[in-house]
Every structure is written in C-alpha cells, then in structure tokens.
C-alpha cells in the first residue's frame, strides 16, 4: 500500500540523482517524469524562484513608476506656453502591453506582481520545494505517501503557471490579485485575460490541495520507527498544520473563482449587483480562503526558523510543545478571522466580532517569537548566512506582527485600511517573514540538496543587502500610509514624494542583494567545494544521509534514538566529537 515505494521509476539509477544518462532530452524527460520527492522538490525550487523573479520584476516596475508623481508642467518657451507630462515612467510599455493608458500599465503591473507572488510563488514556495525535499527525509521515509500524486501536483502547478503566464503575455489583467467584484466581472469585458488569470489561480489551488493531502498522510503513516509525534522536527509540525489549512480552505477559493468565471462568461448574476448579485459576498468567500492562506505562507517559514535557530545555536529548542501546538492553534483560529479584511464593508456587530478574533490569533504567534528568542539563551551561536537570516526574520517578522495590532484595532483600522500602511505591514510579514525564512532555509539545506557548499562571504553580503534594502523599501511605507497615501495609486500628491523615492531606492538595493545570492548559488553549483554529510552538526534525520541523499534517502531504515534537538547530550552523526564538546554535567 502506501508504505511500499513506487518502483516504476525505471529511470532510477544509483548514486546521486544528478548524474543522468547521456542525451539532454532523455535527461529532461527523466526529470519531468520522476516520482522522486527530491527531484520534484528541486524542480519546484527552481520554478518558484523563477516566479519570484517574475513577480519581483513587476514589483520593481511598480516602484519605478512611483519614483515621482505624474505632473503636467508648463514652460514659457519664447512667447509660447508648452505643456508636457513628467513622471509617467512606464508609459513606454503602453503600446507593448496594448493598454488604454499609462495608468493601466501600472495597474496591470501591480496585479501581476500580486497574483504571481501569491498564487505562483509564496503559497507553494516552502512546502512544495523544501517541504517536498525534506519532509520524507526528516521523517525517515523513502518518499512521500503517494509519489505519483506528488508528480501530478507538480504538473498541475506547471499548467497553472503556464495559463497565468499566457494571460500575462496577452497583456495581463488590471483587477488586483484579489479580483474584487464587480470590478473584476466588468473590466476588459472584451477579453478573456481575466478569465485566464482566474483559471490559473483555480488550477493552482488543486496543486496545493494535493500536496497538502500527501503531506498529511505521510506524517501520519511514514514516520520512522521510534519517532513519536513529539519527536518530529518542528518544521514537520509546521508543514503538517499548513497542509491541513491547504486541504480545508483551498476548495472554497476554487468554488469562488469558478463562480467568478461563470459570472463573467455566462452572465449568471452572483456577485455583480447589476445582475442581482452581491459584491461583498465575494469578499467574504475570497477572504475565507485567503486569510487562512496567509498562514499557509507563514507557518512553514516559522518551521524553518525553529530548525535554523536550534541547529546554529546548537541548543534545544525552547518550549517544543508550545511551538508545535501554537502551529495547530494558529491553523484553527485562522479560519475565523477573514472578516478583518473587510471592516469597512460590514456591519458594526460583525466588525466587533472579527476584531476580537483577530487579536486572538496574535497570541500563539507572540508565543512562538518568545520561544525562539529564549532558545538563543546560553547557546553556542554562529553567525553564518542561515543564522543571520533567522535573526533577520526575528527582527522583521516582529515588526510585521506588531504593526498588525493597529489593523486589528477597529478605530485605527478605519484609517489605515487600504493604505500603504497595510502594504508595509504585510510585506513585513510575507517578505520579512516567509521570503527571509525561505532564503535562510535554502542556504541551510543547500549543501544537503546539491552536495556543494556555497561561499559564506557571498551569502553574508547578500543577506546584508537584503536587510538594508528591505527595510528602506518598506519601513517608509508605514509613514506613507499613516499620512494618507492610499494603495494601488499610480499617482500621488506632492507631499508623499520623498518617502516614495526612498522606498524606490530601497527596492534597488534589495535587487542587488538577490543578485548577489544568485551569483553565489551559481558559483556553488559550478565550482563549489563538496559538502560533507553534516556540515552544520544537525541532529534531524536528513543529516544522517549523504549530501545529496541517495535515491531512497537512507541505506538502512533509520531508527530514531534521540530527539531532534538534543544538542546538549548527543554528538551529531558524521561529526567529529572534538568539534562538538558536550557539557560535563547535564
């Protein structure tokens, strides 16, 4: 049954999964049809990073347009007044994108940025890449429970992305990634781009559901002998909680998007009031999925941080059970807080209830942060790239969490809703949380995945640039928001210019940081030093197998004899006891 491994992978061969048969096509085919969770994880990793690049380009375009406001200036040339327009920096794309106006170019850019980043990058990012690669290994299994289903979800992901990219190539959509009705059901009525983009999100949802199901079953059924629930690494707990949300919430968005497509193509009135529908109903449906999905984005990141802090501080994680249970707590409460996205469109009673529930979800998150910081106490901390990213996560994610409080507070939210304050807040959570943890995780597991070390100097320079660039870009936006700058504006009044400028310059530094990482990674793949099996001295099971792991991960089924964080009593496998002195008394 599910514990027996699929042996139909006829292209399988011994040794590293990296050296293949001759012939490029054969090799590509072999990758594309593999059921090996590691290869699927690696393919996902490159795919989501490519989507991150695409969404990032759109973000840079958005910031570039906002460098200065659009103004009509009149100059006295000789005796004539000459009028010209300044600040329309994306106007050159208008014809290429077949847009009605420079503003529409901007609107499509921010939509593209949001839709790509949310549906194609951040939702699948950690679970589908690092999760796919490491969940089975960390459990001591040979693969996920349903390897072929895993391949199917990869292909569904690819198809979803292709549909989305196709819509972008046709010109893109200007609905915003939230597809709010009735704007989304009426805009560009003469085109199918909106339908395509919505369809892409719909298809991608299935990929998410299948991966989630696969993980839940794997965690329940394939833990190695000796591994109880509370012997699992916290990354697994986080992925488990994430998977539950994915399985339960994603169908709701699927149905909602389907209704939207039906309304647009068949003119069935569901959300559009001119056909007897209710536009606010859409917002409820949409956020019923999209709020829990915020935790699909952040929970795996929290899991990574638990791993990074423990290993690189060589310290037992503080409050293991509290962290594990807070993951489940967050997953449960996340289903009850969707209303806080629509405080300005609902009645008083509902607003009060949702405000209270929203505060509730803050508490397990705060507990996690306290536990992480307490883990550092009396540790043996090394400031390498993964650890620096983990510390950066603590910094930016804490800001992200705390700046959420004025948004949960009803009176202040009425001012801050739909402003740059919100933009800054969720970038501190999504980017300062998820992306930062993802970067830390990639560096941490890079030697294991590819069998090569990366340049620590390169990693640290990239990390520093990302830190500076990120904070310049987004901290300024808090002030823009409180002072009155609405979001999704292609143009703005003069007093906001300085802050917008700083933010745009920050985005360039951010870009530089990611480019440094790109170069570091390429150099590592091309000529990196060979990685040992356990370069960081980790105690979780992935450090017991080779770097990179063999096809079925382990030479013998591992038997778990110690906890994942028993650094104070166990010398890590493959490590020299000299480098890992244990405390005398225990």
């Amino acid at each position: 049954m599910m514990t027996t491994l699929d042996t139909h992978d006829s292209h399988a061969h011994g040794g590293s999964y990296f050296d293949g048969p001759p012939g490029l096509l054969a090799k590509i085919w072999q990758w594309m049809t593999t059921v090996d969770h590691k290869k699927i994880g690696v393919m996902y990793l490159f795919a989501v990073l490519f989507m991150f690049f695409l969404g990032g380009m759109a973000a840079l375009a958005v910031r570039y347009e906002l460098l200065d406001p659009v103004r009509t200036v009149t100059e006295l040339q000789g005796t004539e007044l000459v009028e010209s327009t300044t600040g329309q920096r994306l106007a050159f794309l208008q014809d290429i994108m077949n847009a009605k106006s420079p503003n529409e170019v901007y609107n499509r850019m921010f939509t593209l940025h949001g839709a790509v980043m949310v549906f194609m990058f951040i939702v699948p990012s950690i679970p589908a890449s690092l999760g796919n690669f490491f969940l089975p290994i960390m459990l001591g299994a040979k693969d996920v429970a349903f390897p072929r289903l895993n391949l199917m979800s990869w292909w569904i992901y690819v198809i979803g992305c292709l549909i989305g990219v196709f819509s972008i190539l046709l010109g893109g959509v200007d609905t915003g990634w939230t597809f709010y009705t009735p704007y989304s059901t009426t805009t560009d009525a003469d085109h199918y781009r909106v339908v395509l983009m919505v369809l892409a999100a719909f298809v991608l949802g299935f990929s998410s559901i299948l991966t989630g199901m696969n993980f839940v079953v794997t965690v329940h059924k394939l833990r190695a002998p000796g591994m109880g629930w509370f012997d699992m690494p916290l990354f697994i707990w986080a992925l488990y909680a994430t998977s539950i949300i994915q399985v339960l919430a994603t169908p709701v968005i699927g149905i909602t998007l389907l209704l939207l497509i039906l309304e647009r193509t068949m003119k069935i009135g569901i959300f559009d009031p001119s056909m007897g529908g209710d536009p606010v109903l859409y917002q409820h449906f949409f956020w019923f999925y999209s709020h829990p999905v915020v935790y699909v984005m952040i929970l795996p990141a929290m899991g990574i941080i638990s791993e990074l802090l423990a290993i690189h501080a060589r310290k037992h994680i503080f409050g293991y059970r509290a962290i594990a249970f807070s993951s489940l707590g967050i997953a449960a409460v996340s289903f009850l807080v969707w209303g806080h996205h629509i405080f300005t469109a609902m009645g008083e009673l509902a607003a009060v209830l949702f405000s209270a529930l929203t505060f509730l979800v803050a508490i397990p998150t705060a507990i996690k942060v306290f536990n992480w910081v307490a883990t550092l106490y009396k540790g043996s901390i090394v400031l390498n790239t993964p650890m620096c990213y983990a510390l950066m996560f603590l910094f930016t994610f804490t800001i992200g969490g705390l700046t959420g409080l004025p948004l949960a507070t009803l009176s202040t939210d009425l001012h801050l809703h739909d402003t740059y304050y919100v933009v800054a807040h969720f970038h501190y959570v999504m980017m300062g949380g998820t992306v930062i943890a993802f970067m830390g995780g990639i560096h941490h597991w890079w030697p294991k995945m590819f069998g090569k070390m990366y340049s620590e100097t390169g990693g640290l320079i990239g990390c520093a640039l990302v830190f500076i660039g990120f904070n310049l870009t987004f901290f300024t936006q808090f002030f823009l928001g409180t002072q009155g700058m609405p979001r999704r504006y292609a143009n703005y009044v003069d007093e906001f210019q300085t802050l917008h400028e700083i933010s745009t310059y920050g985005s360039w530094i951010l870009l530089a940081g990611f480019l440094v990482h790109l170069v570091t990674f390429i150099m590592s793949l091309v000529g990196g030093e060979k990685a040992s099996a356990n370069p960081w001295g980790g105690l979780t099971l992935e450090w017991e197998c080779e770097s990179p792991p063999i096809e079925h991960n382990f030479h013998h089924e591992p038997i778990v004899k110690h906890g994942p964080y028993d650094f104070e009593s166990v010398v890590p496998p493959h490590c020299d006891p000299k480098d890992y002195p244990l405390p005398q008394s225990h």
Partner: protein
Amino acid sequence: MMLSTTTLADSPSILQDWIFGGNAASRAAAQSDAMFLAITWFSIISFVIVIGFAAYCVIKYRRKPGVPVQPSPHHHTLLEIIWTVVPSASLLVFFVLGFRGYADKVVAPANAMELKVDAWKWGWKVTYPNGASSPEQKFLSEQVLNDGLVQQTGLQYPIFYVPEDSDVRLRMHSQDVIHSFWIPEFRTKMDVIPNRYTGYGFRTPKLKAGDTVMHQVDVYPDGSPVLAEVSGRDMWIFCAEYCGDEHSRMAATLRVVPREVFEEKVAEWGRPKSPWLLGQTIWKQQCQICHSIDGKPGTGPTWQGIYGTEGAFADGSTHMRDENYIRESILNPNEKVVAGFAPAMPSFQGSLSEEDLEGLIMFIKSPDRDPTTAGEDGDSAGSEG
C-alpha cells in the same frame, strides 16, 4: 496598561506629528491617533525587550571553539504563563478601546446634516439637503510662471463645502464598482457599494486664525484666475478601494468654511440655472474625466462636433446621434458602443433627473457656448484639457 486615550488625545506629541503629520481634524480623529500611539509605544517596548534580548544572546553566546553549550531548561512554566497572559491582557485593552473609538467614528448624532455621496468611475458628487451640489473645482497645483502670472495646471478636483464646527453624516452609494470614501484628516473611510447604502459621521473642526485657502474670486480678461486668501481649511478626499484606470485621480477636496459662507453658497447653487449651464456643470462634475469637448479622445469619445452626425459602433452599425441617441447613451451606455472604445461608461440611470438630461443634451449640442446667451463666451474657464 490602562492608557486613557482621551488624555493622550489632548497632548499631541512629536511622534504623533511625525507619524500622522499632526493634522487630525476632529476629536474622534485625535483619539484614534492617540490609540495608535499607545499601541506604537507598546510595540516599541515589546520590540526592544525581545530583539534586545536576542542581540544580547548573540553577543554573549557567540560560538567559541572547544567551548560546550551551557545547559539550560527546555521550558519554564511560569515564564511561559507570563508571556501568554501579559500580551493577552494588553490585547484585550486594545480591543475594548478600539471598539469605543470605532463607535465614535462611525456614528453621527441624530441631528447631523446628511450629505448624499455618489461615486462612479471616477468621481465623487456630494448632494446637499436642498438638492444642490457644488460646481466648484480646484486645480492640483498652481504654478507661478517667470512673468509672474499664475498658471493653473494638472488635474481638477471638485470642492465640497461643509460648515465649520458641525456634525455631518454621509449616506453613500456607488453607480458601478466598489469605491471607498476616505478623508485622511478624519481618520475614517468606508466602502461605497453599488447595492446598498453605507456611511459614517464626523464633526467638522472650528476654523483657527491661520486657516486660509486660496480661492478664485474673479477672472482676468485673458482667462487666468484672480486668487485671494479666504478663511477655510482644505482636506483631501481619496478613493481608497481600487477601481480602475483613474483610481488615483478619484480625489476631491473637502473645504471647511464659516457657516455663513457655506449657507450662502449652497443657497446659490440651489437656484435654478439655464439648462445649458446645468449641462456644463454636470459635465465638469461627472463626465469630464472621460469626455473632452476639445477633440481629444479620453476613456470615452470627445463631444466636439458629434451632435447631428452619424456615429459608428463596435458592431459595425451606424446611427444618427440625435437627442434620443444621447439620452440612451447616458442611461444605457452599453446598448450602442462607439467603435474604438471599450464599454467602460457607467450607467447614470437613476442618478440624473429629467432636467439634468435635458441640460446635458443642450450642452452636447453646443459644448463651446450657450446658444441662449448670444455672442458671449459661455465657458470662461476654458483652460481644461
């Protein structure tokens, strides 16, 4: 953490100025700033404790070769209870205070003046209790040219007048998609939705000695405006819910003026006008953002010289552009879509009266001047475009 937002509201700090620009226009707004500030202080303190402790550990417990880690407990029940209860209690306080502030912001006293707000892609219209609305507009920027003349440039925004020191309630409705009516200086916004009324209330501030605005009092013979300083205070109104191409242009000015000025203006606007003048006013308020009268195409076709000519439509048909056609175009714009344009025009069914339609037809017939006032140039502020 029992902070009283009322006392905080009365003593604005530098931080408050820095965060909000110190321009809260009502007591509810000042209290909301104070609430924000209280949360900010709470956040700063929490941040310093948490991140400060992390930084301390990173420095103190740097890895030294050959030195083992020091054992420490893997959990600590008392500590864990404290760091669960303290944040929970603080959040409860924020919740309760936030709810009180919310009630202050959205509920207006029963005797407040009710303004009807209409929203469409992309504009706002405020209708006063006597049925009048403001025809006045403000330029985004006034540029002083090298020869000292004032050149008004950029976009124009409607000016909505409200009397100082009085209660106002908004009843809002949208013609098309969802918009959101935000007055940053009152720290409040609410969505404007096509199939239901929404709204909120606020109390306008008393004008202070230094509160003045530049106001057009006359025009020079060459058409440029004569500006003078009058008592008043301008605030931005922004659309805060994304609504398409000109979303970022969907702004307006709320002008707080002395009560006499307000009453005089509203009474003046309430007087009947010639149909052509009425048409011109409505064009400026509601149609200009998409329709020019000087031949330049915008989101919609220009109105220059269209009346009485054949129009070509997207489906290949043609039709004489007469009174009936114009009427239909306004009430049911997607019936016949002009070739080369997207079906982007909102229907004005239900928001324009018979009289308004009559005026618009008169105006489209002859956009440049009022045929009933022979000779004189009807449109004095002809510098738009």
